[in-house]
């Protein structure tokens, strides 16, 4: 039942970078684009999603043997929806302001394709612990991408950084990184900015991977392919 270190490493790497939901799988796009008007929004929603994913993966992996094939989708959804409702209720009670900002996107965690995708692709086939880890790591992947995108959009769009942090940690206040009279490039925090920003992030990842691959290639370049002029 326990998982090996190598497995942990692989699952984590997949979730955080290699199979990153936002940049590679292009799943869970709606929250990714809709709530990343600030860094805090992005991070908070991803944390909520992380929680749901880890738990739903765990439960599904535990229960998978009792779920008949025909109704597996409804049951998976049921499990996830119940967890989402719990998160929804919890945030409503204890983080009301954030709840108001994230609004409809908390219930929509359930239709976040990523949640079901991970259940189907991973939890339905793996052990509970590994599944929970997978969910969590996919969530971590989401946290940093949403945080990054949110941060960038916030910075370009309104010139602040960590806006809305007072809603999560009372007493802290946002930082103004850019001069006070920065005009604020509004498109950045509007939907077009979300799309274009993510487009640039994806391109950025492509670039990093291409560079990594190039470095990889350069090392064992000499012997094997000597004859191949193709």
């Amino acid at each position, binding site marked *: 039942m326990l998982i090996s270190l190598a497995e942990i490493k692989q699952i984590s790497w997949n979730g955080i970078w290699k199979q990153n939901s936002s940049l590679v799988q292009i799943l869970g796009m709606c929250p990714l684009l809709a709530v990343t008007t600030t860094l805090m929004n992005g991070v908070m929603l991803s944390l909520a999603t992380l929680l749901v994913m880890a738990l739903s993966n765990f439960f599904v992996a535990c229960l998978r043997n*009792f779920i008949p094939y025909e109704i597996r989708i409804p049951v998976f959804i049921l499990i996830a929806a119940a967890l989402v409702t719990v998160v929804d209720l919890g945030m409503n*009670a204890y983080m009301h302001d954030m709840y108001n900002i994230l609004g409809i996107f908390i219930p929509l965690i359930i239709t976040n394709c990523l949640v079901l995708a991970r259940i189907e692709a991973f939890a339905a086939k793996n052990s509970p612990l590994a599944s929970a880890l997978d969910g969590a790591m996919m969530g971590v992947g989401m946290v940093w991408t949403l945080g990054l995108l949110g941060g960038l959009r916030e910075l370009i769009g309104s010139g602040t950084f960590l806006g809305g942090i007072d809603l999560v940690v009372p007493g802290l206040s946002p930082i103004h990184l850019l001069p006070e009279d920065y005009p*604020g490039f*509004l498109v950045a925090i509007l939907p077009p900015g979300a799309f274009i920003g993510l487009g640039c992030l994806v391109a950025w990842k492509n670039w990093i991977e291409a560079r990594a691959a190039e470095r990889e290639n350069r090392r064992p370049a000499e012997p094997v392919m000597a004859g191949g002029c193709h």
Partner: protein
Amino acid sequence: MIAAKEPTAPGMAARTAAILFLFVVAFTAALAIVYVATKPGIDAAAAEEKMRAINEVLPKDLYDNDLLADTLKIPATPELGLDDESTIYRARLGGEPSALVLETVAPDGYAGKIRMLVAVRANGELAGVRVTQHKETPGLGDYIEPKKDKNKERPWITQFNGLSLDKVPASGWKVKKDGGRFDFVAGATVTPRAMVKAVHKTLQYAVANRDRLFATK
């Protein structure tokens, strides 16, 4: 997981129904428990949210009653731009009526309705105005929100504080550009015009109906 024998359709139906039933019952029960557990928290948060909004327009020293308990439901009121029923909070100080907190809507904002909360003292002065919901253009018409207003010392919306129908004649309830007394930001006069008009109407309504509104049933 999969039955060894080819199941019949009704048999299958019964089986899946039963299993789904079990799952649903289990999860609904769990949810109900969570709901019951979080309900007080949610209610408290909602109340706190309301109070925070009210406190922005209504100085704390104006009331000592539980505002959320002392309310009046009014039906849709065109004077306030409301096409739905709404709640009026009644502030009392030592049992005496001290102020009304009304919800009002300026229907002709640049990008649609501007919802606000207006507090009117018993003496007909405005205690405060806050915008609760609007769709004005960010960076242009949104200076009606103190948080977005570039003028941090004296946000645009605080101009209303202390004004009354007596102090400002009807012709003064306009933006300066139209000959009134209210400031505006160049290039975005639609929004303040709508706001001023709505606040003026609200004030008139509150003053006219003062006694009726304060009356405890």
